[in-house]
């Protein structure tokens, strides 16, 4: 009986539109989770795919010696494709000319991801046996010989390399790269015991296999072996990807929290609407079990419809967005299982756990309510509701993020937000005490209403404010990330670097480029030096430290030093003043932290066998992700004047100006030119994809916020319905009631807006400093816009609902129909 009655009630309520709100809330929760998960997985796959091209593989192991064959066997067992390569420095001879080069000896199959770009286009395959491919500048340095000698073997110089996919971005790399087959290395006999060789093992495959391999292989690596993936910080996009991932995750969690809130509010309304039905059923003798089964089934049906619609919507959303994505991204098809399971989980867990408390209250409605309508049954502890709601949120958050820390942070934040908003809202509304309804004018009626319903209004404020807080937070973060990326890759960001410019070439190169560039290129002098002491304490290397030598650890390599009169663009001064005195030095913040430096510390360098001591005068933040020349240490020109230097520069050329580069090579053959155009455009493409996903997330959060607001208005109007009916019965005009309701909601919305800005600024401060490493600033325009928009939106919703109610007769209103 219960099942058929549940089905009948469900059918009728569905056709009469009484379940719209709760189904919509569940649908939206499922839709956003499913859609967002599948779109973000697709984008993530695409981003990783694009990023893989920067390391020519999905994963890399770098090792100073040959790796344990067990690790390679594991890769094979997991079905990964792999290539091995060796990298070493060696002298290369062409007749009388010679040049130190970096040799990359690779196996057939290289590169697993991306392409080798030659001056003739994309390379097909590898150099043939006894041939090497060379970087353009090597040709310039050696005069394009036909044959070269490497160790004891002779090779033909066949093709010019523009870029290797895993070349990375290092404008300071001083020796040109040559590419050869790994089988040819033996005959050169340059690799002897003790030779410094980097063995690189590159792997590619699907995500599951890669993860399995990672879990199995990583424990087998020793400390000298390095695991590299697209996010290891080696690629210039690592930071962008990491931030986008964090943003998507956070936004999704907040989206889930919002959708859950909407479900919670809607479930409460759903249960309240059934109070009389339960009382009546109990009066007619329905047992507790019958009522439990009846409403359990009813809710299950409601949830099932919401979930199915949500899954369809999520799938459609994924399809829709994919249709707008570039073909190469759309080609990535992530498995739909996880998004579907997440959607299902979200729908059922949120619907049941958020409805549990209102449902328990519903089931506890006493039959006596049929005679005494004000009876609402036992008041179960609110803590139970809180525990269940937060439990649901935590469970969903964990399912989605797989990160306990992030989940607990979000749950704690939501809890804090709720408590803070409830208390603040309650006190803001209860500023004064008032008696009577004050029916003289709408404003007084509204104010009186606000105070009388202080408790319910405080609850409503939590709903309105939460929606606004999350919306503002996501909006601001998205904007900041987009700005940050725009700063990283502004229009006309440099796509060519010139290095090894001799002092006498500086002026001619400037003059050569000036007519073709929009602004004069900045030329940075580069002097190589080693930091040897801090405050007269001689530094030791990390190797020495490992051997047991005690002392302060320095930087175990030469640094590229420069001098400047002013701070470089894109650097932020954190402490002190930029180089004022001759022996001042400006230090990058990361190095300052690593070396435990503070203002006034004395740094001693060895440059060209001479010693130079300077004082730390300032500490700068450097945006390493920008494709700009960046320096750890910047000196004054006077301090570095005695030392020999070369220069480097970067500039932007349009594609149409490429011919200029050939002229430059001819005119200045010893200058090395690095073309990062391909990298810049790839990076820009990735950022565009990520930006799109951020906008999508914003739209979904906006929808979830709107739904919370609508659900909250609906709940709010339910408490006002009887009052409206009474006032209406006593002849209050529709205008007065609409205006008073509108004003009351407008005031609520405005207060919610103010609270939301306060909490959003605080939340953003925490997120920016703790998670996203973004600049913190106040969003002053919000302080006006949020209360205004909050007031307008909430008032509009209130008036709209009020108009609907007032279209009914007084009788209907009084009966609560």
């Amino acid at each position: 009986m219960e099942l058929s009655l549940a089905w009948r009630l469900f059918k009728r309520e569905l056709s009469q539109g009484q379940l719209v709100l709760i189904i919509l809330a569940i649908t939206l929760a499922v839709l956003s989770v499913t859609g967002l998960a599948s779109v973000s997985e697709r984008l993530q796959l695409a981003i990783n795919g694009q990023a893989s091209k920067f390391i020519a593989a999905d994963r890399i192991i770098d090792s100073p010696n040959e790796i344990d064959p067990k690790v390679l066997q594991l890769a094979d067992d997991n079905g990964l494709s792999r290539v091995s390569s060796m990298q070493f420095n060696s002298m290369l001879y062409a007749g009388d000319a010679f040049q130190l080069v970096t040799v990359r000896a690779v196996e057939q199959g290289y590169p697993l991801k991306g392409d080798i770009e030659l001056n003739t286009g994309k390379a097909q395959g590898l150099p043939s046996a006894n041939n090497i491919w060379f970087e353009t500048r090597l040709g310039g340095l050696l005069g394009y010989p036909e044959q070269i000698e490497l160790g004891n073997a002779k090779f033909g110089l066949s093709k010019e390399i523009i870029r290797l996919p895993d070349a990375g971005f290092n404008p300071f790399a001083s020796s040109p790269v040559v590419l050869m087959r790994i089988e040819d290395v033996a005959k050169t006999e340059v690799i002897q015991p003790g030779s410094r060789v980097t063995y690189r093992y590159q792997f590619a495959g699907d995500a599951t296999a890669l993860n399995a391999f990672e879990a199995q292989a990583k424990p087998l690596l020793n400390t000298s072996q390095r695991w590299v993936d697209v996010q290891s910080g080696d690629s210039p996009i690592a930071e962008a990807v990491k931030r986008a991932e964090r943003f998507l995750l956070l936004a999704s969690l907040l989206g889930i929290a919002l959708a859950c809130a909407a479900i919670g509010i809607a479930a409460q309304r759903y249960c309240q609407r059934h109070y009389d039905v339960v009382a009546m059923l109990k009066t007619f003798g329905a047992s507790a079990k019958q009522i439990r089964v009846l409403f359990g089934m009813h809710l299950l049906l409601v949830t099932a419809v919401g979930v199915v619609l949500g899954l369809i919507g999520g799938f459609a959303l994924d399809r829709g967005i994919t249709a707008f994505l570039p073909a190469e991204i759309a080609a990535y098809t992530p498995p739909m299982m996880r998004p579907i399971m997440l959607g299902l989980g979200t729908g059922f867990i949120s619907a049941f756990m958020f409805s549990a408390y209102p449902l328990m209250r519903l089931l506890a409605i006493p039959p006596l309510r049929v005679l005494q309508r004000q009876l609402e049954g036992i008041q179960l502890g609110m803590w139970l509701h809180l525990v269940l709601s937060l439990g649901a949120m935590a469970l969903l958050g964990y399912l989605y993020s797989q990160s306990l820390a992030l989940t607990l942070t979000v749950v704690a934040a939501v809890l804090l937000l709720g408590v803070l908003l409830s208390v603040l809202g309650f006190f803001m509304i209860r500023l004064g005490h008032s008696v009577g309804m004050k029916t003289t004018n709408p404003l007084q009626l509204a104010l009186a209403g606000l105070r009388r319903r202080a408790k319910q209004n405080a609850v409503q404020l939590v709903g309105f404010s939460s929606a606004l807080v999350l919306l503002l937070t996501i909006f601001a973060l998205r904007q900041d990330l987009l700005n940050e990326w725009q700063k990283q890759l502004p229009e006309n960001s440099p796509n060519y670097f010139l290095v090894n410019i001799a002092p006498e070439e500086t002026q001619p190169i400037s003059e050569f480029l000036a007519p073709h560039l929009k602004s004069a290129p900045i030329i940075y002098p580069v002097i190589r030096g080693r930091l040897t002491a801090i405050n007269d304490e001689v530094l030791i290397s990390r190797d020495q430290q490992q051997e047991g030598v005690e002392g302060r650890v320095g930087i175990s390599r030469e640094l590229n030093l420069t001098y400047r009169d002013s701070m470089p663009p894109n650097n932020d001064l954190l402490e002190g003043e930029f180089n004022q005195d001759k022996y001042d030095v400006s230090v990058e913040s990361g190095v300052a932290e690593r070396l435990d430096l503070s203002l006034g510390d004395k740094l001693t360098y060895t440059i060209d066998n001479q010693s130079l001591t300077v004082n730390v005068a300032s500490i700068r933040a450097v945006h390493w992700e920008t494709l700009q020349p960046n320096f750890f240490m910047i000196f004054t020109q006077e301090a570095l004047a005695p030392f020999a230097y070369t220069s480097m520069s970067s500039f932007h050329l349009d594609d149409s100006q490429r011919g200029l580069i050939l002229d430059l090579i001819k005119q200045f053959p010893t200058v090395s030119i690095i073309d990062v155009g391909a990298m810049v455009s790839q990076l820009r493409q990735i950022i565009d994809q990520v930006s799109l996903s951020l906008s999508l997330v914003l739209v979904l959060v906006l929808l979830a916020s709107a739904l919370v607001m609508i659900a909250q208005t609906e709940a709010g109007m339910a408490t006002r319905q009887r009052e409206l009916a009474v006032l209406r019965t006593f002849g209050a005009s529709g205008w007065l009631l609409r205006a008073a309701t509108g004003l009351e909601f407008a005031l609520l919305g405005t207060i919610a807006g103010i609270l939301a800005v306060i909490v959003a600024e605080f939340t953003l401060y925490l997120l920016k400093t703790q998670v996203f490493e973004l600049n913190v600033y106040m969003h002053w325009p919000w302080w006006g816009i949020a209360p205004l928009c909050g007031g307008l939106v909430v008032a509009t919703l209130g008036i709209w609902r009020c108009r609907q109610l007032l279209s009914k007769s007084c009788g209907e209103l009084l009966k609560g129909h």
Partner: protein
Amino acid sequence: MSENSAISVSHLVKSVVTQEGELTILNGINMDVKQGESVAILGPSGSGKSTLLGLLAALDSPSSGSIKLDGVALETLNEESKASLRKQKISFIFQSFMLVDTLNALENVMLPAELAGIAKAKDKAQAMLERVGLSHRLTHFPNQLSGGEQQRVAIARAFICEPKVLFADEPTGNLDSANSDKIADMLFELNRESDTTLVLVTHDMELASRCQRQFIMDSGCLSEKTAVQYVEQKAEESDEVTGEARAWS
């Protein structure tokens, strides 16, 4: 308690604790209603009529005293057993009809029969609606029916399970006089036919006078009087003759 008592009440007390202290709503009520009898409980608002109805119908528990309904002592029952007793022996008609908005007339009438697991609930409901003259309104929803029609649906619902006792709380309170008369006729006719005990709470003395016995509830005390006696008593208490009394006399 006589052998054929449908309801037997002795020394019934109901108190509640308020902010001002304990408030006694019913103060030592005694009454006995025979099977098939119709009784009316009259009294001013707040006198405790509805509280008594709630207790008699096993919707609430007394502070002390005892109630026997069809021989079953209600104080010995837990909530689940009370629900079972209501399902088997009791039915209700309310002033505000208490129909489920989202179910149509037929489904509303079927509801108690389905709860009680009665076979062919649909056929029975259809027959009951025909009895109350609503065979043409089977698929109408409550908001598509007039007040009188809604109360007729409620009457059909009340009688579908052939209850031993029917409690009616102001069954004509929300209706105009023409509809009130029709509903009252229908109620008493069905009551007679089915030999149901009717306990009716009302302000309407005309309706009360159609019952076999009248009880007056005043300040938590119950006494059996005729409606005429009640009006006279009220008139003595106040120099002003009430509109009700004028209408009655």
